């Protein structure tokens, strides 16, 4: 089936550094999402993105977070500067259409460890 690739699978950085998480969505998909999952807990919505713009962001999407997809390349989540509480697994998802009948396709996640 369609695959979303996330790079890297694991990132370890020191608190205060910048990190960029990369997502290669399914090629013909137009809608993109980031979710955050702390170990053993539910996935929390961060942001959705379409046509070069953020559609909506949650309270978890702090000012230090930003997303972009320049020229149809990777869909990225940047955190600058990072904090200890940013340690989690971040999942990227994409979908071809908009709306509740739609399926989201998720990547395998990037585990971010902030030391």
């Amino acid at each position: 089936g369609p695959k979303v690739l996330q790079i890297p699978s694991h990132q370890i950085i020191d608190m205060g550094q910048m990190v960029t998480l990369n997502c290669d969505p399914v090629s013909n998909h137009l809608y993109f999402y980031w979710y955050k999952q702390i170990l053993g807990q539910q996935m929390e919505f961060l942001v959705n993105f379409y046509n070069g713009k953020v559609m909506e962001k949650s309270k978890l999407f702090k000012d230090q977070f930003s997303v972009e997809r320049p020229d149809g390349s990777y869909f990225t989540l940047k955190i600058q500067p990072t904090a200890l509480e940013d340690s989690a697994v971040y999942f990227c998802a994409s979908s071809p259409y908009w709306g509740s009948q739609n399926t989201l396709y998720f990547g395998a996640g990037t585990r971010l460890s902030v030391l």
Partner: protein
Amino acid sequence: SQWGEENLQALSIQEGEDVTMNCSYKTYTTVVHWYRQDSGRGPALIILIRSNEREKRSGRLRATLDTSSQSSSLSITAAQCEDTAVYFCATEGTTSGGNYKPTFGKGTSLVVHP
């Protein structure tokens, strides 16, 4: 929170048994998605049930949806070891502005023993 307290759950069963996982939600939705997440992987959709459907079947899976009680269930018949995973339900999470942000429950960790 959008979710009821009972969503966090861990189940351990023997191969061949039937199992049912429950999900309750607080906000309006026109659809409930059920995803499974294998260890080290992202969630994958396994069944979707709409508000005009009370029951939906797919192979050994059966989903129900009761919009009056705002609850959904996922049943697996004759569970197999490969059904071991975490199962999440998700609602549409549509905001007042019509924005769609799928919102996940806390999940059920299912372990099927041989």
